[in-house]
């Protein structure tokens, strides 16, 4: 069974890693969405 400290460290690390992977996924989605589409107007 994991200890308190294990869960604390793994938990915070896990959330940041998960969000980092999702961040990269969002960047990839943005890139893929520009393929074959009209250029987005950036403001």
């Amino acid at each position, binding site marked *: 069974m994991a200890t308190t400290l294990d869960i604390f460290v793994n938990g915070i690390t896990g*959330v940041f890693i998960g969000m980092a*992977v999702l961040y990269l996924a969002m960047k990839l989605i943005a890139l893929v969405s520009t393929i074959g589409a009209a250029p987005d107007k950036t403001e």
Partner: protein
Amino acid sequence: MWLISATLMYLAIHRKYEPLLLLPIGFGILIANLPLTTLMEPGAGLIWRFYHYGIEWEIIPPVIFLGLGALTDFGPLLSQPRLIFLGAAAQAGVYITFFVASSVGFTLEEAATIGIIGGADGPTTIFLAAKLAPHLLGACAVAAYSYMALVPIIQPPIMRLLTTESERKIKMKKGRKVGAREKLLFPVVATVVIILLVPASAPLISMFMLGNLFRESKVVERLTETAQSSLMNIVTIFLGISIGATMSAENFLRQEVIFIFSLGLVGFMIGTATGVILAKIMNLFTSDKINPLVGGAGVSAVPMAARVVQKMGMEADKRNHLLMFAMGPNIAGVIGTVIAAGIFLSLLK
């Protein structure tokens, strides 16, 4: 318990504090604490059946997330992806509270359930409590929804303390326009990514993203409309009354409930603070500054926390509209809390 029931119903009706939940919860407490009823009799009671088949079978929280997904627009997050880390930072409140709760004598499962209150996400709190510490479900749910209602009171002093006047006036550069294709791809990609990383979060994330896919596909308007309104309203009724009915006197009138409320509040406050602090740290590494107030919206209280940021931004500068920027971390916070809950489940179950 009758007094607590009356207090919650008063807060719901007269003060309009989260009435959709606190009113049925308050009434559920009343009927569960009347003598000689069989409403919560295992196997036979009416309200027991709502609780058993809705909550113990983990149906209601994911269905609420279906509705939330159908209501959510990921545009603000997709236009400024870096804001997702502010949602991550707010989850530090969850884990710090978990650590403290464990240190004061709660079991790991109980500490995790108390910690998740700091994420300010009602359905996730209920989902986790039902799995890890069902005897704390009522107290944790009431704490989570009460603090969500008190966001406009709890957050501003913390955000003011951690920011300077000039920081609160920072005007953020408008994010890029987000196309329909991106908004369509996001729920599918996010589902795959998050479930592969944290399989235990699957029930909540899959329903959240399905609801969002309904919305963004624009081909199932009837399903979207049902998920957003009727279905959510129906399950909210069953959820509220079931939670209230778990709060019998012997379950609720215990010393540890005071700890639960106190620790949950601390978790929420820490989550607000860590979001603001991370925004300030991020500003050290970028010329495109983030208004640190936006970090306070990293908790999952959508859209209340974002509205608080908008109000505080306008107090500092009347022309500074931060609402759409704040929605990014606000929505990220929902995902972050689900990931946090999934990690707890992976490590404790």
